[in-house]
């Protein structure tokens, strides 16, 4: 077994082991173990990424059982990219939560609500284990199980936020479970046709199939189920209360990473498992139309918010729309198909990765201000920037990434998407991207500008109290994410090469 193969298995199992260990430890020890585990995961990501960058495809067959019954873990370009970004965001957020324990929720002791929820650590490590397993799994069954692990731990993480968060958490649970049940039904249908769960074998079997009706039904079921979990526009209503009621350390995990897991499964189904089917065009066009509606309506709704965290959450709804805009372009058309599809695919991944980093940073900053000032009403946050120049700088850098200004990954993603759209002569995509960019500039200004205003802060207000050393260290976490938003833009070309490794064409 090579080091890369070992890391494949360890990436899914080490966080799970960490989660089990943190369950039995007292709270301060949980924080220490959480940080150690996160560094270990980041270390394990390195051999997998090196192996994939050098053009290999590490693969681990657990227990020596071959497909269709055995479990295959595969590392390819898509997996490596998302493993990398999850490690970056994960380590930063873990550090933030360890330094500022009150960002992990509130806990009802025998007498009162105590800040700092010890349940955060096992749940977050369990969620991380599920995320890594989603990226690496080579069969539909493990995709389902690990997506379910991510979904259930995410619901429990939302519920750490105290009373106000229980109702959004329950709503999230209903939608997430309904989505995965539809996905499961789709998987079952595919298996009944092909007799295998393995992604490559499924594709091979389906390519030999004459009648596309059943795989098309399965693909529709899986797509609708996953769209619920990603929060594509008409199914987005759960996202805003869940992401804004969650504790400060949880919102960036949910918005940055958890919805990306469902997006990765969506890409795996459309591009790896199911070949191009007769009649799947209308589904792709519908996803494209919903994506366009998501960009526009999500941005307008973000503009209408009075509180910072819901504004950031609606901006996530708008950004999700961009990823689905590309779906009509992913289908091979009449002209140079493969190149076009790869451009659109690279654009989607670049935008998703850029969003993961930038949105994690922005949500951490919003949660930081909410924890410090006791509210996230934008009128009450006037002048909060005076005490936190580093935080505001970092928020600005994250906003650059979300807007898609050069040199962030958001820019290269939009550029690739626009190039593919021009080549395919789908001009409406350009219009939507341009309108979405202008609207997002407006809502970002609306979110950040009040913080910069000069305002008299009452002396007894929580915002006027001196900033502790721990809070200063917490601001560094946001700065790291902000700098990463800008710097990852320099990796844009490398990202496209990396995605070529083990791609479906």
């Amino acid at each position, binding site marked *: 077994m090579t080091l890369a193969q070992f890391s494949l298995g360890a990436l899914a199992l080490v966080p799970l082991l960490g989660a089990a260990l943190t369950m039995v430890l007292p709270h301060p020890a949980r924080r220490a173990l959480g940080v150690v585990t996160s560094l270990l995961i980041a270390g394990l990501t390195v051999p997998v990424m090196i192996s994939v960058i050098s053009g290999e495809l590490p693969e681990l067959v657990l227990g020596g059982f071959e497909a*269709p*019954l055995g479990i295959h873990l595969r590392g390819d370009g898509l997996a490596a990219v998302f493993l990398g970004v999850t490690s970056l965001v994960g380590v930063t957020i873990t550090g933030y939560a360890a330094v500022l324990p009150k960002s992990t929720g509130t806990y*009802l002791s*025998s007498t009162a609500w105590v800040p700092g929820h010890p349940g955060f650590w096992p749940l977050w490590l369990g969620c991380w284990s599920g995320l890594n397993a989603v990226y690496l799994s080579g069969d539909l*069954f493990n995709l*389902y*199980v690990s997506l*379910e692990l991510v979904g*259930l731990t995410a*619901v*429990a993480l939302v*519920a750490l936020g105290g*009373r106000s968060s*229980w*109702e959004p*958490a*329950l709503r999230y*649970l*209903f939608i997430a*479970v*309904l989505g*995965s*049940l539809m996905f*499961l*039904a789709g*998987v*079952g*249908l595919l*298996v*009944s046709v092909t*007799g*295998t*769960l393995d992604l490559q074998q499924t594709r091979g079997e389906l390519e030999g199939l004459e009648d596309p009706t059943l795989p098309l039904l399965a693909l529709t079921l899986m797509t609708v189920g996953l769209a619920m979990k990603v929060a594509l526009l008409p199914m987005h209503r759960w996202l805003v209360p869940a992401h804004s009621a969650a504790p400060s350390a949880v919102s960036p995990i949910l918005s940055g990473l958890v919805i990306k897991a469902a997006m990765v499964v969506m890409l795996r189904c459309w591009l790896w498992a199911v070949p191009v089917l007769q009649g799947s065009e209308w589904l792709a066009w519908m996803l494209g139309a919903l994506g366009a509606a998501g960009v526009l309506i999500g941005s307008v709704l973000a503009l209408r918010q009075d509180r910072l965290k819901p504004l950031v959450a609606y901006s996530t709804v708008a950004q999700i729309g961009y990823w689905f805009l590309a779906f009509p372009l992913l289908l091979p058309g009449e002209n140079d198909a493969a190149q076009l599809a790869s451009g659109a695919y690279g654009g989607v991944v670049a935008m998703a990765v850029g969003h993961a980093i930038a949105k994690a940073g922005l949500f951490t900053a919003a949660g930081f201000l909410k924890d410090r000032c006791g509210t996230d009403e934008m009128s009450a946050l006037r002048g909060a920037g005076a005490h936190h120049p580093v935080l505001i700088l970092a928020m600005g850098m994250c906003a650059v990434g979300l807007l898609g200004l050069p040199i962030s990954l958001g820019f290269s993603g939009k550029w690739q998407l626009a190039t593919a759209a021009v080549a395919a002569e789908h001009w409406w995509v350009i219009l939507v991207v341009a309108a979405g960019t202008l609207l997002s500039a407006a809502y970002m200004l609306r979110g950040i500008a009040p913080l910069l205003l000069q305002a008299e802060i009452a002396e007894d207000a929580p915002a006027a109290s001196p900033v502790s050393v721990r809070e200063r260290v917490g601001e560094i976490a946001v700065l790291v994410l902000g700098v990463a938003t800008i710097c990852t833009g320099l990796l844009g070309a490398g990202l496209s090469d990396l995605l070529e490794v083990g791609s479906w064409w």
Partner: protein
Amino acid sequence: MEAGIDIVSWYLLIGTVMTIFGIVRLLLVRDLLARLIALDVTGIGVLVSLVALAARSEPTDPVLQALVITGLVIAVAFTGLGAVLIRRLEGLQEDPPRGDHQ
């Protein structure tokens, strides 16, 4: 009954009907506990369909059976989580100042 429909098709039909009823009820009802139960009905409907699909071949398809067993475990997990959240929320309504703590 006509001889035209065999037993597997019957179970497939029952599974599909249960799934659809579950989803409709989940989307229409307001009571939280009823919604959780509707979600369970949907889950059972999906699993019954999968069992029926597995029973079409002789011997029974082990891959689909594995899917069903995992689906059952996950159904237990989400029902438990949902029940805890609902109990807390209802406790909140009955006893607002002290929350659900006993």
